[in-house]
């Protein structure tokens, strides 16, 4: 947590400073001649607040007592699983536009279900195909969502 807090607050400080610099380049109130603050003022103020609060968090986190190293290997396994899932989902979303909804979804569902449940292949395949077709039909025909993208238009 301590490390995570420090990294998080540092990212927010950098982000806040970046936004302040960007917004300083935006047109000022005088340009519009209405006396109303320009487009940069609001995000600038919020970014300023972000920097201040992040600094408070940073100082508090540095003062936190050192953490005992965690030995939980199951948690590590869980985090690894999440990371692989995230990569898989990014690939799935990238494939959606190429292979279309049905093919990419069946592949994604089959891969995940088979990986997680380690059951019979035909069972995972059946669940993937039926679920995909059900979701496709509900959205395509019942809700009129044009899920017809990709090379094959389905």
């Amino acid at each position: 947590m301590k490390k995570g807090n420090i990294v998080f607050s540092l990212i927010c400080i950098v982000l806040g400073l970046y936004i302040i610099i960007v917004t300083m380049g935006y047109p000022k109130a005088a340009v519009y001649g209405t006396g109303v603050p320009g487009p940069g003022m609001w995000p600038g103020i919020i970014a300023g607040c972000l920097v201040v609060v992040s600094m408070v968090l940073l100082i508090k986190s540095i003062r936190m007592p050192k953490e005992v190293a965690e030995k939980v290997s199951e948690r590590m396994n869980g985090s690894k699983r999440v990371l692989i899932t995230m990569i898989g989902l990014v690939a799935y979303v990238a494939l959606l536009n190429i292979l279309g909804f049905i093919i990419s979804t069946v592949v994604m569902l089959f891969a995940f279900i088979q990986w997680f449940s380690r059951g019979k292949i035909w069972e995972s395949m059946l669940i993937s195909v039926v679920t995909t077709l059900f979701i496709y039909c509900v959205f395509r025909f019942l809700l009129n969502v044009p899920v017809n993208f990709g090379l094959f238009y389905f």
Partner: protein
Amino acid sequence: MLIQVLQSALEPMVLLYMALGVAAGICIGALPGLTATMGVALLLPLTFGMDAESGILMLLGIYVGAIYGGSISAILLHTPGTPASAATAIDGYEFSKRGEAGRALGISTISSYIGGLVSVLCLWLISPQLAKLALKFSSAEFFLLAFFGLCIIANISGKDMEKGLICGLLGILVATIGIDSVTSYIRFSHNVNLLSGVPYIPVMIGLFAMSQGFESIETIYDKDEVNCKVTKILPHKEDWKVILRTAPITGLIGTFIGIIPGAGADIGSFVGYNTARSLSKTPEEFGKGSPEAVAASEGGNNGVTGGAMIPMLTLGVPGDAVAAIMIGALTIQGLTPGPMLFQNNKVLVYTIFFGMFIANTFMLLMGLSCIRLFTKVLSVPKTVLTPIIFVLCVIGSFAMRNNLFDVGVMLVSGIVGYLLSKIKVPTSPAILGLILGPMAEKNFRTALLKSGGSVNVFFNTPICWFFLILIFITLFGKHIKGFFLSFNKQKG
């Protein structure tokens, strides 16, 4: 108007959607790891093709059902299905250990219903008056209202106040991306998909549904098994007395907590639980399987459901994360939540009120008659459910604008939401910031535009002063209390 309201709320299709919503909500709530917010976010895309009444009432059905459904796993597994039932798990599971799971589920069902009814009644009584008052609001008052809502982030973030604040500020900043509504200047990104701002429904689906999916991947092999039989659900005479004494009070408390922007059913449930303990003749029984405790927490969390709708419908300020998604649902239907909704869409507003009453009744009937069926949901394997949730997140975020870019936004939000949850950063403040940020900015600048740049406009009316005092109390209340306590100690 009454006939029109009855006609639209009792239309067979509306009733069917509502019943489906309640059933789906109970199932979602019962499954540990799936929250009410996730359920509403995940099923929101189904309402895009519906008319406003059906869509909103189905979502409300899901909300009401899920908040109640959380108690099923809380009682049977000691794992709250939603955070709203965390307090129920403390005493509810003790009933299961004694082999009285059915009794606890019965108390929870009736108390949830009573809590829900009290909140609907308050919604019915308070909302029109608040909307009338809000009609008198000018930009300055709306700015201060939104600012007050944003200040509350600090108070509801509890121990991790800085983290909650940072998350809220990030939400406000994300909302500034795109064309500035006052000057039409393009801020931060020239991407054509972001010109009208970051689409916040995909952000919500990502933050609340996708990130939870990632979390359940971590514990995908954990198995929850129901070890006791569910019998004798109808409460007996003694329990009825306890329920009728406790649930209306905690329902009322829950309603008022629901009205506070950002405070959700989890807080309602705990405050209800603690209040009931302090009012109880047998506070020592709390934690050991007390019927009073179950009634209190369930009355409290379902009380929040109606309360959260009050500021959402009347002021456009979400009472909790689910109400924030409801704002999205109303916007998609071409409706703007706020006082004008009560002027232009009176029938819809009262249909929502009446529909909430029906949704609660469905919840009661389903809870009492099909509870054994709902407990079966607990045996659905996470290994299959989680990947399906991912697909629903993807297609749901695509469906809003039929745009694959939104799917990317959802995925990024999901990953960010998961990473934030790892370092215990609450994500609800981001949504509050995302919705209240633009409202605060627009009204702030409009007020200044009207006043020719003079800040006096924020101090002109009694309503302004009312909000200023509220803001002051919200920001500095704790410090003032601390100061007086230390002063008294010194004196003593």
